[in-house]
């Protein structure tokens, strides 16, 4: 069997159910692949791992992948299991926020570590400065959890539809206490959780062939997970080394994730890609990427994998 190492973007959770399902259900084995899944964490940069040779394939968000390309790391998107963005800004109603126009003067919690690009583009499109001036918003680097919102340190925090949002709900706030702004609805959505490899590897036919089989099996895993959310959540829990995840939370996450992967066959939608690039280029004085990327994606793999 051929060895493949996959580096996830975050810790083991239902967000990555497709890969764990493909692993446990033997879909990778069927394709004669021997896949190692490495969970990430708050300070694991997938792009760095692939550059160091610690992985063959990585999952990354497109803004960060494109930014990495500008740093000289030739990441190529070979498949895009997530069709829809799950990112949103969740605000407390009692801060008086009803729409994005109320953000000025407020404190907003944002994830950094390469996850800040969509937010920065959005703000610059709205003409809000992010350096703490009166005409803009105060940005706080959000830690691992939703505390800043619960404790009123921030008016809004970044959440994923499938994860942090529910942590806020679990903590005791109700949907009525909250206002949410999905990036998808605001027209600033960027592509999340894509499958990326290095260009120089892709030029090797044997590697391409491996990737074809990998994507095929992974998508099979994703479709299985969508259809069997509770079983998928169980598989994820099996693979969680920290033993800290709960069944309730993962099952719920799996159902939310299914909404995001539902529209995708695995093939990158060129239209979504162009919208992502456009959003990122609109960053005003400080755009995330400065030039339209070339060769940042290919359908070569999905064409073979999904035929």
């Amino acid at each position: 069997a051929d060895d493949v190492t996959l580096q996830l973007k975050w810790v083991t959770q239902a967000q990555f159910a497709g890969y764990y399902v493909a692993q446990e259900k033997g879909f990778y084995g069927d394709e004669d692949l021997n896949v190692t899944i490495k969970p990430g964490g708050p300070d694991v940069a997938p792009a760095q791992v692939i550059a160091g040779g610690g992985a063959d394939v990585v999952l990354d968000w497109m803004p960060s992948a494109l930014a990495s390309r500008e740093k000289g790391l030739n990441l190529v998107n070979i498949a895009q299991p997530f069709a829809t963005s799950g990112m949103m800004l969740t605000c407390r109603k009692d801060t008086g926020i009803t729409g994005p126009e109320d953000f000025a003067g407020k404190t907003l919690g944002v994830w950094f570590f390469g996850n800040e690009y969509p937010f920065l583009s959005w703000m610059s499109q709205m003409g809000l400065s992010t350096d703490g001036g009166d005409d803009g918003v105060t940005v706080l680097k959000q830690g691992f959890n939703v505390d800043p919102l619960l404790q009123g340190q921030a008016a809004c925090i970044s959440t994923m539809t499938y994860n942090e949002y529910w942590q806020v709900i679990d903590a005791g706030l109700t949907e009525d206490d909250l206002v949410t702004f999905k990036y998808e609805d605001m027209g600033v959505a960027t592509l999340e959780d894509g499958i990326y490899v290095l260009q120089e590897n892709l030029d090797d036919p044997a590697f391409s062939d491996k990737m074809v089989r990998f994507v095929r099996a992974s998508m099979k895993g994703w479709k299985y997970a969508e259809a069997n959310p509770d079983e998928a959540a169980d598989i994820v829990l099996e693979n969680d080394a920290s033993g800290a995840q709960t069944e309730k939370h993962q099952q719920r996450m799996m159902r939310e994730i299914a909404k995001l992967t539902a529209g995708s066959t695995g093939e990158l939608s060129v239209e979504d890609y162009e919208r992502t690039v456009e959003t990122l280029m609109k960053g005003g004085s400080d755009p995330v990427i400065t030039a339209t990327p070339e060769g940042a994606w290919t359908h070569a793999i999905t064409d073979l994998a999904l035929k």
Partner: protein
Amino acid sequence: MMWILGSLVFWALAVVLNLYLVRNKVAGAGFIVPVLFGITVLVVWEGMVRGFNVSPVLLPPPSWVGVALVSKTHILWQDLVQTFFKGALTGYFIGCGSAVLIAIAIDRSPFLQRGLLPVGNFIAALPIVGLAPIMVMWFGFDWHSKAAVVVAMVFFPMLVNTVQGLQASDHMQRDLMRTYAASYWASLVKLRLPAAMPFIFNGLKISTTLALIGAIVAEFFGSPIKGMGFRISTEVGRLSLDMVWAEITVAAILGSAFYGIVALTEKRLTFWHPSQRKQR
């Protein structure tokens, strides 16, 4: 290949030169030798990175770091103010100050001493990395929580050292105080505190590096969008490793300078201690 060979040759030359400087007790060797060693490390690093074509998203050559240091001075300065002057220093003074006061309080009561020291040692063994998110929860994301982490980090090393120091005066010196029928405060001020100085400074020196590390680490768990820890974690995510190393460089220089200042103060204040006096 040129790069690799070049750096190896430089290394060899530097070693020879250092040997020469030390053997012949050249004036100023105490300064030149470590600096030359540092330069050698940089040259070899540069040579290896270039020679082996290491990807700059893994390890940038020091020349890039140098460029970042020069061109991003304003960002580095702003981060430094946030992390060092606001977070680390505040925490350092509060932590060390309260530890000394509490050590003096404990010192009067052998009962408390016997109880607090083992418990204190246990608490000192808590990995503070774990305390950082909690402090951010308690004290907010700005520098106050960083100072709180620093207080937690330096408190126990300082406490233990001071308590030990207060017991450092020898029996005869204490008996002497007894023969004078000296009051508690007189013997504290005139004997125990001066005798404790070397220990207190030991604690203060250990605490300098702890303070800086604590303040930086705490920023990983929530911060405003400035600060050395914020910059390091953010720029790693952005693969701007040159900026990351620039911040690390600033941290190391700052930490060493902070340590150096405390060590110098120690030299001035505990000149009388045998460890500070040259052998005859």
